[in-house]
Structure formats: C-alpha cells, structure tokens
C-alpha cells in the first residue's frame, strides 16, 4: 500500500465495508460488527498517522486520478482537516460500539440497512473534510444528508415526518449552496477552493461576490441549524433511532461548522467575508440570540434527548459567533469547540443510548433515582454535563475561554453575556437532571427508608465507549495547549 494514499484509504475502507455489510449482512448478522468496527478502527489508525504526518510535514495535497488542479479534483489535508478526520474517526468508532447494541434491540432484522447507511454517512463526512473542491463538497454534503434522512426515517413514531421536514429544509440548503457555487463559478471559472481564493480578490465585483457568499453561508446555516433556521433539528435528532443519534448529533452539525470555517478561510479570504463590519456584528448578534434561545428552549423540554437537541442549537451559536468575531481568539475558540462539542455531545448521547437501552425512555420523569440504577452511566453523564456547563478541567471550559476572550477582544459584549448566561442555564438544565437522578422519588419525613433500586447497568458494549468518552473529555481539556499551538494556530490566517 502506497503511503501517500493513506488518507484516501481512511475513506475507502469504510466505503468497501458499507458495500460488504449490505451484501453479507443480509445473510448473517455476524458479519456486521466485525466489518463496522474493523474498518473504523482502521480509519482511526490511519487518520492518526496522517495527523502526525501533517503536523510534521505540513499540508498534503492529493489529486484524484493524477489530474492536476484546478481541473482535477483535489483532496487537501491541512492541519484542520487532519484534526477533523481524527475526530470523525474516533467519534464514529466510539459511537458504533453503542449503535451496534441499540440497533440490535430497536431495528431487529434491518441492521444491515442501518449500517450500510451509517458507514456511507461516515464516508461522506470523511469526504467533506478532505475535499478541496467546492462542487465536490456539494455532492458529499448531499451524500451525508441523504444517508442522514434515511437513518432518521428509520426511527419510531413521528420520525418519518421529521425526516421529511429535514429533507425539505436540507434540500433548500443544498440548493442555496449550489447557487452560491454557481455564482462563484461564473465569477472565477473554477471550482477548486485554492484557485477560487486566488482569483476572487483580484476581481472587482463586490456585489456578485457578496451574493455568492450570502447564498453559500445561508445554505450552510440551514444545514447546521443556526438559530432562526433551526426548526428541523430537534424533531429530526430526537426521533432518530438511538444508534443513529449517537453518530449524527455529535458529527453532522459540527462538520457543517467546519465547512463554514473552510469556506471562510480557504475558499474566500476572511478579508472578503468580513468586509462590512455590520454584517459580522449582525451575525454575532444572531449567534448570541441563538445561544440564549437554544438554552431557554432547552429549559422547556421534558425529555432528555430533546433537551440535548436544543443545546446543540445553542452550541452551534457558540461556534458561528466565534467565527464571526473575526479575531484569532474567536476563531481558535470555534475550532476548538468543534472538537470539544463533538465529544461532549457524543458523551451525552451515549448516555441517552445506554438509558434507552435499559429502560426505553429518557423522559425526565423516568430518570428519577437513575443514579442508583446506573451509577457508571450517570457518572459519565455528570462529567459530560460538567463539560457542557464549562467546568474546568473538562474540555468545554477551554473553548468557552477562548470564545469569551474573543468576545472581549472584539468588543462583542453581547456575545460574552450570552455565553455566560448559557453556561448558567446549562448548569440549571443538567443539575435538574442530576438532582432527579440523585434524589429519586422523595418520600416525606426525615429518616425515610432509602429504597435500593436494582442495579441495571447498560451492557459493556455501551458502557466502555461511554467511559472512554468521559475520560477523553478531560484528556482533551488538559491537552488544549498543544492542540491549539500545534494544530489550530496553523489555521489562523495571517493578519487575523
């Protein structure tokens, strides 16, 4: 195997595994787990090697079929995309342990369909972070979206309806993106991102450039559920099969945020995006609103999973706002938060999966006394909650640190206030659940009998990735410094 092709294999192996699962999985279920885990383990392994190589030697460029860019399709692995590859591979691997179990319970007999889509989704995500071509990005965005539609529609109850709403919204988003790309193509005659970045500033067409940016950004915002455009997300994510939620929730919105970073940094130059101060200011205001509204809406939910989906909306506000602060700290914070939020969301959704596996529901009422029934799961939940609140040394604190610092640097006090208020609301949200789980159903009186509920911990297949994720939360938090210095700093554009 040629070493230069390694990052392509990170993508190809899960794809082949998807085909094999579709073909062999329908004969016998036994093929599924080894294929899923084996290929993803390979991806983790490969992406870590690539990460090391990129950090050491700098950006890798790869032309598919040896057609030179700007004509050929180019894959670019710069530090940021290498980081995202590792993130996707690790999250996917951890999530798939849990998914294998919960899909076995929820969708018996349809596992091979589920995991074919699941693997193709992962391949699409890998593709998204690798590609250096604007149109390719559209195609891969749609591949991930289509597989997500399918995965969500496999859920129970209203899932199909939610999926349909998602399809409509997602398609509008993709069309907007495509339209923006169309304008860029008319302007520059190229679709290669680096080429676009080279040509765009030399053109003197501010209106057309701005239109193109607006279309592209609005498209991406719908896909990532940025606040006023978020309505599709809570239903879709909370009604998806549990196994799908553990993969989709941590990765989809985060990768879309990555795409926005990519579009702003690599395809446009920041100078072109942030030409008008009032636009950036407006977006930061919108992000602040997103944070507050997402958090407040989460307060009103009676189901843990729905609550988490609203928190995702708030977190998207964090990241978008951080980017549009248009300074180095804000951008660092956003990129860091992509990583951190993926792991935090993964942790919490794994907890949801474990609880649903055991008791079928995560409505707040059903969580009474859960600490006694599932102590390890809830310990991990507590850590995840601390990360969401932003308690050091969990990773959530450090990205929030950079984001607030960026807000102070940029004079965006509304963003700072929004971040702090949302931390406080998160504290309320999560301690409400911790309290429910810890106190259980309260009898009156002082010295009541403490009924010992039977301990019914989730199986090890679900528990071990969960515990690992909880540990990762702290490890990532403590390695923030190296992460920022060796990876993220390299991505901050000059003069930012």
């Amino acid at each position, binding site marked *: 195997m040629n070493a230069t092709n390694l990052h392509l294999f990170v993508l190809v192996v899960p794809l082949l595994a998807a085909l094999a699962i579709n073909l062999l999985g329908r004969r016998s279920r036994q093929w599924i787990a080894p294929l899923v885990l084996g290929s993803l383990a390979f991806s983790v392994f490969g992406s870590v090697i690539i990460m090391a190589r990129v950090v050491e030697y700098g950006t890798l460029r790869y032309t598919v079929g040896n057609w030179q860019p700007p004509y050929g399709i180019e894959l670019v692995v710069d530090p940021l995309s290498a980081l995202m590859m590792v993130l996707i591979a690790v999250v996917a691997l951890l999530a798939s342990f849990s998914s294998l179990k919960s899909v076995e319970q929820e969708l018996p007999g349809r596992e091979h369909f589920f995991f074919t889509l699941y693997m193709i989704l992962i391949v699409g995500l890998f593709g998204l972070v690798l590609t250096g071509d604007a*149109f390719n990005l*559209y*195609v891969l965005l*749609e591949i991930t*979206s*289509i597989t997500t*539609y*399918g995965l969500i*529609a496999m859920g129970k109850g*209203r899932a*199909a*309806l939610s*999926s*349909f709403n998602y*399809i*409509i919204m997602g*398609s*509008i988003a*993709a*069309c907007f993106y*495509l*339209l923006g790309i*169309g304008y860029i*193509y*008319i302007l520059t005659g190229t*679709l290669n991102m680096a080429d676009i970045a080279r040509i765009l500033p030399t053109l003197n067409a501010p209106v057309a450039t701005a239109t193109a940016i607006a279309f592209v950004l609005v498209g991406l915002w719908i896909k990532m559920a940025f606040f006023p455009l978020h309505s599709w997300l809570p239903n879709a994510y909370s009604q998806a099969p549990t196994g799908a939620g553990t993969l989709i929730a941590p990765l989809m919105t985060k990768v879309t945020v990555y795409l926005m970073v990519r579009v702003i940094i690599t395809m446009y130059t920041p100078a072109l995006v942030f030409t008008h101060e009032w636009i950036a200011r407006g977006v930061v205001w919108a992000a602040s609103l997103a944070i507050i509204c997402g958090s407040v809406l989460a307060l009103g939910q009676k189901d843990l999973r729905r609550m988490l989906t609203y928190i995702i909306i708030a977190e998207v506000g964090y990241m978008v706002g951080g980017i549009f602060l248009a300074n180095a700290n804000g951008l660092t914070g956003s990129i860091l938060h992509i990583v951190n939020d993926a792991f935090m969301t993964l942790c919490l959704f794994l907890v949801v999966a474990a609880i649903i596996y055991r008791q079928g529901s995560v409505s707040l009422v059903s969580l009474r006394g859960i600490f006694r029934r599932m102590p390890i799961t809830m310990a991990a939940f507590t850590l995840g909650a601390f990360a969401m609140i932003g308690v050091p040394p969990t990773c959530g604190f450090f990205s929030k640190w950079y984001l607030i610092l960026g807000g102070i640097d940029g004079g965006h006090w509304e963003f700072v206030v929004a971040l702090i208020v949302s931390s406080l609301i998160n504290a309320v949200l999560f301690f409400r659940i911790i309290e429910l789980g810890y106190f259980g159903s309260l009898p009156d009186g002082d010295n009541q009998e403490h009924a010992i509920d039977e301990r019914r911990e989730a199986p090890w297949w679900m528990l071990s990735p969960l515990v690992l994720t909880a540990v990762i939360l702290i490890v990532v938090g403590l390695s923030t410094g190296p992460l920022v210095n060796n990876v993220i700093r390299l991505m901050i554009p000059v003069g930012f």
Partner: protein
Amino acid sequence: MEAIIGEVVAKYNYWIYVVLMMIGFYAMIGKRNLVKKLIGMNIFQTSIILFFVSTGVKKGGGIPIVDKYKALASNIDAATIVNPLPHVLMLTAIVVGVSVTGVALAVLQRIYREYGTLEEDEILEKLQR
C-alpha cells in the same frame, strides 16, 4: 424603462431561474400536501440546474464533442464550443436530486402508511390526538 427591459431581456436566464425558484419555494412553504412540497422541491432544484446549464452557453457555440484527430492537428478555439463543465456538474446534481426524491418518496410512503394521509394539516391533527 427601456433600460430595465433591456436588462431583463439580456439576462433572461436569470429571470427564468428566479421565477422557477420562487414557484418551487412557494410550493414548499405554502402547500400543505407533502407530495406537492416534494414537487416544489424538485422545481427548486431544476431551476438551479437550468441556471447552471445556462452559464455554459456561448453565442454561436457548438456542441463540445470534438473529433480527436482534428483536435490534435489544430488547436480548437474554445470560443466555438459551449462550456461542457456545467453540464457535467449538473449531471451529478441531477443524480443527487433523484436520490433525494427517491428517499423522500420512500419516507412519504411510510408517512402514508402511518397516518393514512399526506395532508400536513390532517397529520398534525392526528398527532394532536
């Protein structure tokens, strides 16, 4: 006035795509029937495909199929053939559109089986109960 008309006529491809897009958009937002929404979505996509294809047009351009030996013997003036790249891109976009439509139809079938109707109002009514 004439200037405006001139502008409209000169960029008629834009106007067509904008009009189509608005029709699709209206169907997606305004119609209560889920299949109509889906059709609206298809119109929406089609408008963008048409827009893209129209960008490849050149005045007096021929089809971009070139005889190999002729091309090798003498350089071909790119101005005489239309730009094939948008067409190729749109081929992919069409495939994407077909896939989305396929998934959407499958989802609609599930919805129909579950609620016995594809009218959004009626579905929501059933969900209320």
